[in-house]
């Protein structure tokens, strides 16, 4: 154990006003001990709520265990992983998820950056506009899903009512194969474009003004300034926003659950929704655990590749 902590004399005032420590206090709690004491509860909670379930799920993923049927878990090796990776049903859900992720994130990035660019050029009302645009992001996905379900209803929804008043026909937004996935992408874009906008706005306001001043002295065009100053400086920050959104979109569950229940048929059933069904309809816990582990691995691998690209971009 460390000895008594020496009183500093660098700041006499501090010494004069310091309360003498209780006998034995300083011997029991060094700085390191204090740090461990404060960090331990959070660390234990993290271990219990994140690390242990992950390791437990990893163990279960190599077994045929079912949470409701009980009985001992039999080791099945990589059987669950092979079943998932070779399943045509999983391939279909992976394809649906990919279309959704690419569609939603691309749309959000373009819209988010465009809105941020337009807002950044305003000098008045920027704060109010930014706040208003952020409102959808503050709502729960379940709430968003419910009110969009009402708005997109083919018979009673406000969207079709507006289309009708414009002389256009009714669209079956949530019950047709093509429009259901587009509807999901649109709703997700409505909610999460502000996130991209916020980060893009932070990047845009951080671009040094002197660069634009130098460009205007050189009589550079608006497009030239955007292409050679704005975009290159904001791009890395935007890519980080894209990473966050892509990870979120990859594990989309709530909007699917509320808006389409994966339908029509299974045409909007994402990987997360499918793993939910495997886990809680059939209670095939071993398979569901392997499914979950594979999804985590895919996210980690793709995120690593993406981060390498980001680092390379930074170095260049």
């Amino acid at each position, binding site marked *: 154990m460390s000895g008594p902590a020496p009183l500093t004399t660098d700041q006499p005032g501090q010494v004069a006003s310091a309360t003498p420590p209780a006998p034995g206090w300083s011997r029991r709690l060094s700085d390191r001990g204090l740090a461990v004491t404060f960090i331990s509860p959070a660390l234990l909670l993290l271990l219990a709520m994140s690390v242990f379930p992950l390791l437990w799920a990893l163990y279960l993923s190599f077994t045929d265990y079912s949470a409701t049927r009980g009985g001992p878990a039999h080791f099945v090796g990589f059987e669950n992983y092979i*079943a998932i990776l070779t399943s045509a049903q999983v391939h279909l859900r992976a394809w649906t998820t990919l279309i959704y992720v690419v569609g939603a994130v691309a749309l959000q990035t373009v819209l988010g950056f465009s809105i941020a660019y337009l807002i950044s050029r305003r000098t008045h009302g920027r704060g109010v506009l930014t706040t208003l645009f952020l409102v959808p992001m503050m709502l729960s996905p379940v709430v968003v899903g419910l009110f969009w379900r009402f708005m997109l209803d083919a*018979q009673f929804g406000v969207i079709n009512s507006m289309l009708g008043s414009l002389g256009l026909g009714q669209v079956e937004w*949530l019950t047709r*194969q093509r429009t259901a996935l587009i509807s999901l992408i649109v709703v997700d874009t409505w909610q999460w474009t502000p996130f991209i906008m916020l980060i893009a706005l932070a990047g845009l306001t951080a671009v040094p003004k002197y660069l634009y001043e130098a460009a205007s002295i050189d009589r550079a065009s608006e497009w030239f300034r955007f292409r050679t100053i704005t975009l290159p400086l904001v791009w890395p920050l935007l890519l980080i926003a894209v990473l966050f959104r892509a990870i979120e979109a990859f594990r989309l569950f709530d909007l699917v659950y509320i808006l389409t229940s994966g339908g029509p*048929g299974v045409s909007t059933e994402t990987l997360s929704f499918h793993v939910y069904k495997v886990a809680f309809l059939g209670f095939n*816990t071993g398979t569901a655990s392997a499914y979950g582990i594979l999804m985590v691995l895919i996210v980690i691998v793709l995120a690593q590749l993406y981060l390498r690209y980001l680092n390379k971009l930074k170095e260049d």
Partner: protein
Amino acid sequence: MLVATTMAACGGGGEDDGAKASAPKAPATIPELTKDPLTLSFIWFDWPPAHALEDFANAEYTKERSNVTIKVKTVPNANWHDAMFTQFAAHKTDFDIPILDSQHIGEAVTNGNILDITDFVKKNIDVKAYNPYLLAAYGQYPQAETGQRDENASLYGLPLLGDTWTMIYRKDLIGDKPPQTWDEMISVAEKCQADNPGVSGLAFHQANGSDAAAVTYNTVNGVYGGNLWDAKTRKIDGIVNDAAGQEAMDVLVNKMKPLTAKGSGNWFIDEVNAAVAQGKACIAFNWIAASGGLLDPKQSTLGTTREQILDKLGFAPLPTQKTNLVPLGGMGMHVSAYSPQANQAEALNFMKWFEQADIQKKWAAAGGVPARTDALESPEFLNAGPFNKVYADSVPRMRDMWNVPEYARLIDIENTNVNAALNGAKKPKDALDDIAKEQQGVLDAGSGKGGGGL
């Protein structure tokens, strides 16, 4: 998702569970009841009968047991199975009386989640007072053949609410006489739709969640002489998709679907009721227990009084075709194996109280649908709603689905495929063949423990 799965797994894991493959037994006589304040909790999905039950039980049961409060916890219909079985998996429930769909019993029994109340029923309940099939459907496992009950089989529940589909028709649009056959019904709906722009010929359940689209197909399958499976050989492939099954799917997708409102491919109970209440459907099908709101002038555009609405709306049993089968709805009440002993005793006492003839009549008057024959035939029930006679007349015609531990997966397969066929995402024949193949795969793998399930 990973955490949720794991938590369920952690709760239910353990080497010792293997021995616990069947339901624990309830005592034959009700143990001594507590005098301390006690909350007896049910779990059900959120619909009018759930609220009616809570009000009824708190008003009536507490006259005898003043220390008891009844709480009916409700969850969205689509979460109903998961809400109960994830708690069962954790071997800890915040409810004492799960209200299980008849097809959930197999899963709950084989997992040891609910009490075997056979001895309790023998000693406390007059089983002869019930229609034998209703008693079997809501309580017996293994499943009874349609219309029969094995008196030697074990019982795991007692009827809480009976139900079936009623045909709701617009008397002012198609006349007072309801169509008698399915073909006639389709042709009447077709004419009504043509004669009344803005009103669709039919409204029925087509949604992807719960058992919505599946029950619709099962109903049409039944009236066109099809079968869902051969229970003895556990064979689905080749039976559900035989000629009768194909005809039923063809009728549903190619004849009935074109008569529904555009975008109604995700309609379930509430949407069908809304279409009827807003005068947007000539003929509709819905569960009787969910039809009470149709007579509420506040929710209807068909009239400003109940009488005005009843001038326009008629309720009739389902038309027949090759057979006269109707879907069995309703649910039984059971006792959670994980409830504290005092609550289990109170649950048994509640069940004994609830199943008495006079209480069943009061329950009928309060909006419930009883299963005791004397209550079914009582004026209290028959006069309580215009659809109650439909239920009484339909009881001998009922057919249930598969009551097996794999039910949740079977129903999901059928729902998604029928929904796909109804919404043009799959050809009807392909959808039916996929149902047969996928469901057979689930049944064939069902005897194993865990694994699979994709």
